[in-house]
């Protein structure tokens, strides 16, 4: 009873999909399955390298399906599904990983979009059902989950500091940390309406990029000086070394450019999905979208892009298959756009630029090893900060649902998952524990063994 009042008061948490939204998800799933069938793009970054052998005919469709299933299953059931159930919004692991598998699995071209659309229907109706069921429960864990957004936003603010510390040492890390802290406090004081971490995050990322680029430029100058000192012999050796990689990369880029119209359609679709505000692209974004904080979600996913550009570009150039969401830049753009038509246009334009620029991006990244390093440290730092934020936010949600008993159940389930070797991916373990804990508390409520903590 009291739980329902809380849900009604929150208002923005009505996440049931309208008919046009349902049809969009189904159509997009059909498209992504078709594209995966043609081996033009897969969402799973881990599957992408394996697409090269498939494209070149050195391996079979069924063997590639097995690889795709093996690398994706854990993320569908261990990350995508618990995230969707605990936030009520869709995410790429739930939407795109199964269409990766279904597309590759499908023996015939016409069957791939049908299988994809079927999956789209399953998630649309499944999620709508699960959402309305969860909100009707006396202990409403979806509303409790909104506790997540504060720890996510504020701890995520720190990710550039972690990356700088790991890549460039304690001193620069400490400086970056101090600068960010000052900026957060200043933002709170001077612009109370802006998210406190917005400026700090931007400056932190710029510092990391500046450190990395200057290191690479210094290194390049050093190498040039060495080459001159050693005479001409060394200078001739370098371009020759690069050859196999350059030819592999350019063949892939040409293959992808040939299908530019299809990629533009894909970009339009993914951007539209983000614009509908029923989808969160990053690991933590779903919680922000569910709460209606679209500008917060856009910031988090925008900075996340920096961690993924080199990964997606190099795997795409090495394999000839692109990412279903591209560089994921269409996510933040989609969240912020005011209407669906603009989303379609912008999504198509962004994908056109990304695919056309791929070859150039690969060449630039090849010359900037520290920048590639930075992106790996960024991804590591994002995981580290979000892991803590999601764990802490889940415990806060547990506390909101059931006080000490809630913390005991949710924290306990998290620790058991750790002890069992992480059956559920670490990032999703705590939210999954909140769902299980929420169901358990509801059962206890029906048995008259538990009274919901507070009335809102």
């Amino acid at each position, binding site marked *: 009873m009291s739980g329902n009042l809380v849900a009604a008061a929150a208002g923005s948490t009505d996440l049931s999909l309208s008919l046009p939204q349902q049809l969009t998800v189904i159509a997009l799933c059909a498209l992504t399955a078709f594209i995966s069938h043609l081996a033009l793009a897969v969402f799973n970054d*881990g599957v992408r390298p394996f697409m090269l052998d498939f494209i070149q005919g050195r391996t079979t469709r069924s063997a590639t399906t097995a690889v795709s299933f093996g690398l994706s299953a854990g993320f569908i059931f261990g990350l995508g599904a618990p995230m969707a159930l605990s936030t009520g919004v869709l995410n790429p692991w739930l939407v795109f990983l199964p269409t990766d598998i279904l597309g590759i699995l499908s023996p015939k071209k016409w069957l791939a979009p049908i299988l994809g659309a079927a999956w789209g229907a399953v998630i649309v109706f499944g999620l709508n059902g699960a959402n309305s069921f969860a909100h009707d429960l006396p202990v409403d864990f979806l509303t409790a989950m909104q506790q997540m957004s504060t720890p996510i936003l504020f701890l995520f603010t720190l990710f550039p500091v972690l990356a700088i510390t790991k890549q460039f040492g304690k001193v620069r890390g400490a400086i970056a940390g101090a600068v960010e802290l000052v900026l957060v406090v200043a933002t709170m004081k001077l612009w109370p309406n802006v998210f406190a971490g917005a400026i700090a995050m931007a400056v932190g990322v710029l510092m990391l990029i500046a450190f990395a680029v200057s290191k690479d430029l210094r290194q390049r100058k050093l190498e040039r000086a060495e080459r001159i000192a050693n005479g001409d012999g060394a200078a001739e050796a370098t371009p020759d070394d690069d050859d196999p990689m350059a030819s592999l990369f350019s063949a892939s880029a040409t293959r992808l450019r040939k299908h530019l119209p299809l990629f533009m359609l894909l970009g339009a679709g993914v951007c539209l999905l983000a614009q509908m505000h029923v989808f969160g692209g990053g690991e933590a974004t779903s919680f922000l979208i569910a709460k209606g904080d679209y500008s917060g979600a856009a910031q988090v996913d925008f900075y996340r892009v920096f961690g993924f550009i080199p990964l997606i570009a*190099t795997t795409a150039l090495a394999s000839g298959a692109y990412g279903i969401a591209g560089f994921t830049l269409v996510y933040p753009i989609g969240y912020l756009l005011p209407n669906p038509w603009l989303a379609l246009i912008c999504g198509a334009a962004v994908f056109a630029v990304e695919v056309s620029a791929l070859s150039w991006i690969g060449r630039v990244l090849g010359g900037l090893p520290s920048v*590639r390093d930075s992106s*790996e440290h960024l*991804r590591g730092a994002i995981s580290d900060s979000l892991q803590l934020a999601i764990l802490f936010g889940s415990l806060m949600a547990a506390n909101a649902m059931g006080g000490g008993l809630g913390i005991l159940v949710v924290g306990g389930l998290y620790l058991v998952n750790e002890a069992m070797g992480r059956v559920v991916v670490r990032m999703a373990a705590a939210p999954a524990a909140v769902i299980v804990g929420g169901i358990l508390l509801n059962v206890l409520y029906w048995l008259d063994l538990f009274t919901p903590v507070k009335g809102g």
Partner: protein
Amino acid sequence: MTKILTGGVGKAQVAETVQKLALDGVDVVVSSDMDAAMKLRAGQADYYLGTCHTGAGASLGVLLGLLGSGACHTFGRSVPTEDEVTALIGDGKKVFGFGMDQIDAAAPVIARAIAAHGA
């Protein structure tokens, strides 16, 4: 001396984990996928350990394209046994990918198998 390169998201952690084992005849160096691909091709290094969220994307990346699937293997997010790794090394695998949340468990197993093979 067997030279192992590490790459991917958890490369520093993998190198640290392997160094702590203090295995005889094994030298471990932090690298990156592009760099390692060229070094393995040129014979300047012997093995590559890559990590990322899936165990295959960032960790294998360019290596699979340049060295071919015959030299690469991913354990995904599972933890292999030393016998499995030894068998794979026997098959000519040089590049191993695994999940970054399994580094503590997987890296020592693979490194020990490599050391035993080299000895």
